């Protein structure tokens, strides 16, 4: 990570906050995602990690603070606009099209990159580049051979893979991944970790994940959130040995 300083900052927040009634789910968070880096965010349940991603993706508007994508302020933009600017997200709670086949899930995702889908005459199946992008994403997520199966008939782990495939199929340059490994078997997890290691070269990745082995395998920067606020942020090894962090979070899980 010697060249980290030279890497382009893609996504940046300033004093980002989101309140639900009296609860500060995200509290004054400043963070950066750089091209070519995995920025992992960890923290106990309810720390505000998902809410943070929702604020970045436009699923939720922030209560205060600002979000920048490169030089452009995107605070308060709707999720479809942010997606079109090249920010792709996956959901912790699988959020797919259950009656559709795995292929159709990825295909609809890839189709969103046509300049417009106000196209009424040609069959959607005949758009070759869309099909190829969909197929590529499915293979990346480890679903080759499973394309024709309705997602409702896939296993929970495979549905998690469809979730990833859809996010990839939109061809984003920034990825916001909310616990992508949750619910996946060891083999699929390893595969996704490998995929992240490959993808990172051309992407800025924000990764929320509970699997600490995976986190330490891929993270270039590690941020720990507790009660909506950033407790510590920095190189993974420094965070691992931070006594405050160990007490608040890692201590119990990193017994080995």
């Amino acid at each position, binding site marked *: 990570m010697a060249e980290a300083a030279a890497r382009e900052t893609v996504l940046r927040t300033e004093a980002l906050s989101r309140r639900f009634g009296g609860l500060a789910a995200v509290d004054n968070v400043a963070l950066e995602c750089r091209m070519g880096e995995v920025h992992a965010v960890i923290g106990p349940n309810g720390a505000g990690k998902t809410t943070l991603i929702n604020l970045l993706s436009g699923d939720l508007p922030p209560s205060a603070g600002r979000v920048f994508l490169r030089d452009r302020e995107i605070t308060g933009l709707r999720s479809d606009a942010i997606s079109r600017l090249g920010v792709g997200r996956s959901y912790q709670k699988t959020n797919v099209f259950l009656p*559709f086949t795995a292929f159709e899930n990825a295909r609809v*995702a890839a189709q969103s990159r046509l300049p417009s889908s106000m196209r009424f005459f040609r069959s959607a199946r005949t758009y070759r580049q869309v099909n190829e992008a969909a197929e590529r994403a499915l293979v990346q997520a480890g679903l080759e051979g499973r394309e024709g199966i309705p997602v409702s008939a896939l296993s929970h782990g495979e549905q998690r893979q469809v979730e990833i495939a859809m996010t990839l199929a939109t061809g984003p340059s920034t990825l916001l991944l909310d616990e992508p490994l949750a619910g996946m078997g060891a083999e699929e997890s390893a595969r996704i970790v490998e995929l992240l290691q490959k993808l990172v070269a051309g992407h800025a990745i924000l990764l929320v994940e509970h699997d600490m082995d995976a986190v330490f395998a891929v993270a270039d920067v590690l941020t720990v959130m507790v009660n909506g606020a950033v407790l510590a942020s920095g190189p993974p090894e420094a965070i691992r040995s931070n006594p405050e962090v160990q007490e608040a979070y890692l201590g119990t899980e990193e017994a080995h």
Partner: protein
Amino acid sequence: MAGARVRLAVLGVLALALAALPFLADKFYVQLATKILILAIFAMSLDLLVGYTGLVSLGHAAFFGFAGYLLALVSPQYEAANLWTSLAIALAGSAVLALVIGALVLRTSGIYFIMVTLAFGEMLFHLFHDTSIAGGSDGIYVYVRPVGTIFGWQPFDFEDFTHFYLVVLVAALGVYALLRMVLASPFGRVIVGIRVNEHRMRSLGYHTFRYKLVCFVLAGTLAGLAGYLAAVQFGVVNPDMLGFHVSASALMMLILGGMGTLVGPAIGAAVMMTLELLFQKITDHWLLPMGVFIVLVALLLPRGLVGLVTGARAKDDSRG
């Protein structure tokens, strides 16, 4: 793809059988079939909204009735209107009405959407019922059916019930083919995606409101086509045509036949008209057995009557 070929073959045979009807059956049945086909167009247009996009509208008759009124209003009193211009006016009028209503109602969703579509339908009903712009509660007559000529040649005569039936048949098949094409297109995939999971469609980058609005306008325009044809057939337009009752019976055709299938709602239209006639022969309280029948179908055949044929297979969702 085998499914598509079977569908095409079945449809071809059905189209031929329907085209032969006027040569086999007498006037009463031909006119009944005409009415059924018109309602099939109306029901298919509603299926685009309800069955495919997941927008349950209780005000769809607004476009059906409005187009009928437009024909009546542009028709000279004792002469035939020009088919092409009056049809263009009726379609454009219902499209604009759908654009205006859609831009407002599509800001809501779920139960609120149902309620505001109902409210708009009723507003339009009272506009025509309580004011004298078009004959008030009595409605307004179309004394002479419109005439369409192509460079002086008149290919069909709407005063002839067989001609009119065949034209309506072509229109119904055309609407079916049009909707099949649209549903297979990128646009069609988007609206089905919106029904299944609008939230994810947004997060994939789709401005879902725009797609719903275009869909609403398309459905409203096709309902307008049906309303225009109904006005031609019956020669009279009255406020009931755009009221709640017509909207609700179209919805029942969808439930009866099986929504999200296009064919289902068309079958629903045929079954409902036929049963209405049968029950009316038996009893003055024909709505009662009709209601029982619909409840039974809804309970026993959650996929509607087409579910009997397609079995456990899902409605045409997205085998991709």
